[in-house]
């Protein structure tokens, strides 16, 4: 007989004990982006937990209104950081979305979600789509579209159109990159879907830095998507098959599996919750900053003022806050200025900015306003979604601000140091160092 928990049925139901850990104190409220914008209890973490609990207790059903408030959640998990009782909101939300997907009303933007989820997690299809986009941009069609504002009646399509500026040419990494200097170990590199196509430089820099840090870097060709987008959309079956495949694509003898996209790393670290067989793989997953912060990289000076945006799935999902900052501070000449509300979601949240463009735009405006306050011309952040979203926000406000992944700055600092060393003017103290 199928197990039921109020309105929830079958496997993957939210854990009632976990829901009951919430004592309704509300400390999460001011940290929640949707509560800050909407000012409604049911669009706050406390309110959403209350709704989930009411559903688990059979007080309400999986109604369209219930689904609406749960769908409006960005899944940023800032509430988890704030929660003194340790409520694991992220997995409660994921479980609820799985239930909604199976037993609830159809999602409001199902068709768009279907399209997005049939392209994004498929590197080959995404590659084709982006090649088409490149053509669209370069043929002058984009100028025509923007001038005629034909996309105005389609806010979600317009959001997608605005998000992408240029698409770099595809490049791929060799399957094995040997360690440089003293060998520290062997790591696998997740190349991701969006990262691979939109930020190939980030993958290249990540691999180089890892090699320089003494790691042999394995880049499995067969790797696909991590499944995070599907997990967040409640598509449990698709997520599980991707997770299983990804874990199998990496050899077992790796010290770490390194992700440079916060959203992917966060989902992979939690594979065990959904697929116990992958728990061993999940335990080896690290964000690139966690690995590099332990290494001693030869960094040359970069006279830049940089601010750092905490990607939600790095700061809240993985609790990695200090490592990227520490790495940036190690770059000589680089001034790191703190960003106000640095860990408030920028509105990207996977594909949220495409599904809920209005709310995402408000959050982006808040983020850009805080960036302007810092005076920094460079913003570093460890997630491709944030990079795209914030870059778009800065572009639209006409700001001369460059978005980078921290590894790009580190790689550049390494290059500066190497160039200095090759030149005759390299100071002897540098040359005497061994690394």
């Amino acid at each position, binding site marked *: 007989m199928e197990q039921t928990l109020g309105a929830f049925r079958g496997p993957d139901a939210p854990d009632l004990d976990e829901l009951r850990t919430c004592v309704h*104190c509300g400390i999460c409220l001011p940290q929640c982006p949707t509560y800050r914008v909407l000012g409604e209890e049911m669009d706050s973490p406390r309110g959403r937990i209350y709704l989930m609990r009411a559903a688990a207790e059979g007080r309400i059903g999986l109604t369209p209104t219930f689904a609406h408030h749960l769908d409006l959640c960005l899944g940023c998990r800032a509430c988890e950081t704030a929660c003194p009782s340790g409520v694991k909101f992220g997995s409660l939300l994921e479980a609820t979305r799985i239930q909604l997907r199976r037993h609830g009303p159809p999602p409001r933007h199902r068709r768009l979600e279907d399209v997005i989820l049939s392209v994004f997690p498929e590197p080959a299809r995404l590659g084709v789509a982006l090649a088409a986009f490149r053509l669209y941009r370069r043929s002058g069609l984009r100028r025509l579209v923007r001038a005629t504002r034909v996309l105005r009646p389609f806010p979600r399509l317009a959001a997608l159109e605005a998000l992408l500026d240029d698409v770099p040419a595809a490049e791929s990494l060799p399957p094995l990159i040997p360690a440089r200097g003293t060998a520290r170990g062997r790591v696998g590199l997740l190349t991701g879907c969006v990262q691979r196509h939109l930020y190939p430089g980030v993958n290249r820099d990540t691999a180089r830095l890892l090699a320089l840090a003494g790691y042999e870097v394995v880049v499995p060709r067969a790797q696909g998507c991590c499944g995070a987008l599907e997990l967040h959309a409640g598509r449990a079956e698709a997520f599980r098959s991707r997770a299983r495949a990804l874990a199998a694509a990496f050899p077992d003898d790796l010290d770490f599996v390194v992700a440079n996209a916060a959203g992917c790393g966060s989902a992979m670290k939690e594979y065990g919750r959904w697929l116990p067989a992958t728990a061993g793989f999940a335990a080896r997953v690290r964000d690139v900053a966690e690995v590099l912060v332990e290494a001693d990289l030869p960094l040359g000076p970069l006279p830049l003022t940089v601010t750092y945006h905490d990607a939600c799935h790095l700061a809240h999902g993985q609790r990695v806050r200090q490592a990227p900052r520490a790495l940036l501070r190690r770059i000589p000449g680089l001034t790191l200025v703190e960003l106000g509300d640095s860990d408030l979601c920028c509105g990207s949240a996977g594909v949220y900015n495409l599904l809920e463009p209005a709310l995402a735009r408000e959050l982006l405006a808040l983020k850009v306003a805080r960036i302007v306050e810092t005076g920094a011309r460079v913003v570093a952040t460890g997630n491709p979604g944030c990079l795209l979203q914030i870059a778009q926000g800065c572009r639209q406000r006409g700001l001369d601000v460059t978005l980078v992944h921290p590894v790009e700055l580190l790689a550049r600092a390494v290059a500066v140091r190497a160039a200095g060393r090759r030149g005759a003017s390299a100071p002897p103290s540098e040359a005497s160092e061994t690394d």
Partner: protein
Amino acid sequence: MPLSPGLVGDLQRILGPEGLVLSHEGRLVYECDMHTFYKGAPDAVALPSTTAEVVAIVRLCREARVPIVPRGSGTGLIGGAMAPSGGVMVGLNRMNRILEVDLPNRCATVQPGLINLSLTKAVEARGWFFAPDPSSQMVSSIGGNVSTNAGGPHCLKYGITSNHVLGLELVTGRGELVTLGGKVADHPGYDLTGVAVGSEGTFGLVTAITVRLVHVAQAVKTILASFADLEDASEAVSAIIAAGIVPAALEMLDELMIRAINEGTGAGYPKDAAAVLLIELDGPAEEVEAQGERAARICWERGALEVRVAQDAAERALLWKGRKEAAGAVGRLAPTYLLQDAVVPRSKLPAIMRELGAIGARHGVQIANVFHAGDGNLHPLILYDDRNPDELERAKAANEELLHACIAMGGTVTGEHGVGLDKAKNLPLQYGDADLNFMYRLRGVFDPQRLMNPKKLLPAHPACGEGWRPPRPRLPEGAWI
């Protein structure tokens, strides 16, 4: 009783579709505040953005004779922001702007939904702060603080909310917009600001608040002292105050609470201690230094295991984060709890702590303690699992016994959380019939129809539910002994 379509239509016209919550699910999440024991969903939730909207809501509800329940951030601990009689809940959280900061006059005017800590954050760079600091200050609204006359750790030295409110803009239950008090300290006539602070929404809805700002002290020292015995810690508290030291804050936490906090925030409180005192001193540097040494000596003399001074702002912040998130961290111990707010004379602390232990043992319930020791303001959290009816009954019995023990020692039924629905029934323990009748008549001046936050603050008459007349017998002799 559902609202009439006419009223709903009028409210929608004023507030727009985003400003009125009517869905079953939406109303459900407003059925309780942090005191989840009391539940009552409103028939609608109005979320106004302007004072004019608030006035219009009150006038419409008054005409329709529909109850109004104010709500800020919903962090109250007394069942204040819930709707036992249905009606329209007015969430003031969207009215959260700072209207003016006036440093030469040491004050600021804010909207009621502004989060307490946001005000301090806005002025701290200039060396000022808003002194009332309830532990919920990172989320509770200043309107809610005013409504309950909230206290907080630092009220020991700086005074409670009413000491910091200079003026109010209030939409009375009659729908009038009145201004009480103002920036200037001396206003002719009645101190109506003083009357309205702590009125828990029974007079009307506050739409603007002028508060005093305080300049930060030259030096701050935060000391953590741990004890192997709860009574030793209690005696240290009395000895510190008796020595003439007025700490900015003097807080005590017991073993169970320490465990929850360490797990919750990693505040690093000593693991094996039966009690921890958090002592904060502020003022001129020399004075703070001297008082710090004396306080530390007193702790050592009372058998402290460890006396540690926070070395920097970060360590101090972490010690306070642990304390402030205490109630939230209790979810790690039990899913539900009853929270008392009783006060005892400070000298009775050792005795009441002994009594607390005995009450817990007698009823077989766990009691965690975190409280403002300097004020004698207790916050015992009686833990229970609401799925177990027997446990709930035992918790309730322990709760009542505890309250009566405090009163018997010369204390009061509530210190700083307010009265709300939870403690209204206990007020006759505190006040005489004439006192309660007078309060009822005073309330009638502001809200003759008694539509503002019904069933809160004042006890309902057992027969008619309205107005206080002396019930007989008032209290049976020996009822709680």
